């Protein structure tokens, strides 16, 4: 949950606050969880709503992507692999509308249907965003777009 929120807000301290508040809310509302098997998506929904609440309440400062990597958090610091650092930088540069479904799919292992449920959108739209997210990452990392790849 912390990783998801971090990748959504790009701020470790804020992510920790949001997760803490989300867990408190979840604890208070535990009776509303009818199906224990749905606990994960239930928690994710709470966390995403809490993050949205925080963004509504506060005028949050813009996070500079370079400084987020270079000076923000030890968790982002990669010493063993420059390619990981490049990837993190590329992910941070993605618009949140692409980043969020990608994180849900790759990190949390959610299916397209589950992501669609979380984001309250249709499955085709989710698939389009996932496709576009990978296209953008690929272009950032290799400089090659799928169109160019197709021509090759």
């Amino acid at each position: 949950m912390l990783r998801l929120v971090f990748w959504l807000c790009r701020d470790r301290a804020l992510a920790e606050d949001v997760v803490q508040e989300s867990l408190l809310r979840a604890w208070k509302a535990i009776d509303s969880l009818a199906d224990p098997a749905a606990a994960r998506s239930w928690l994710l929904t709470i966390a995403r709503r809490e993050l949205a609440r925080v963004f509504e309440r506060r005028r949050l400062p813009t996070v500079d992507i370079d400084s987020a990597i270079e000076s923000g958090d030890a968790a982002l610091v990669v010493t063993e692999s420059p390619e990981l650092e490049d990837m993190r930088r590329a992910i941070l540069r993605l618009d949140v509308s692409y980043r969020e479904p990608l994180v849900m799919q790759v990190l949390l292992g959610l299916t397209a249907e589950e992501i669609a449920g979380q984001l309250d959108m249709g499955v085709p739209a989710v698939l389009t965003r996932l496709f576009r997210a990978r296209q953008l990452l690929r272009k950032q990392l290799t400089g090659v777009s799928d169109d160019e790849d197709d021509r090759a």
Partner: protein
Amino acid sequence: MNCLEFRRIVGSQPHLDSTEVREHAAACESCTRYLLELRRMDQLIYRALTIDVDAPKRSRHVSARYWRLAASVVVAVVLGAFLWSALPRASLAEQLAAHAQGEASALVRTADRIEPSDLAAVFKRSGVRLRPDAIAVSYAMSCWFRGHFVPHLVVQTDRGPVTVLVLPHERTVVGTQLQHFEDGGFKGVIVPAPQGVLAVLGRDAPVEEAAAQVLLALDYESGSN
């Protein structure tokens, strides 16, 4: 399924294991390379996303610009505090003179004396006690001055009456030094006291000497300031 359809499907779900995907990959070398590349990229994405949640938070990089800003704030605060501490003293003298002027009619030589019970009432809640008969008080009033009710006295000395204000809430800003002033026809002195200050004003009477006498007559309760 053509190559474009294949790439759109695996581009959104690289690990989708369907018959159509397998068949196309088996028939198209280019799309197989594309699929493998996507899967490698997905592994990298997963590793990149899996940040170490237990990693200690690093202190945020503070740029020189912020240090300069912080330094200027500190300088402004120190300077402001210095000016603030210096200016009220002049203002206090002016206010003392203005207040004494407002009750100038009480500043007269007289043999009248205030009853000890009335004196006690004036000093009530001030945190200060005046020992009865230690000085000759001809006028006593509890006055609103700079945010507090404070004892205002007229004390008769051998060389004339003086106005005394007992100000336990005022902060001394000149350490143990006395501060003399002249304003509105008054000569005055502000004297550090065990709590706050004591102010004595007069027209001709020796204010410093009177202040010493009054201070000796006052008992300051500890912890009342």
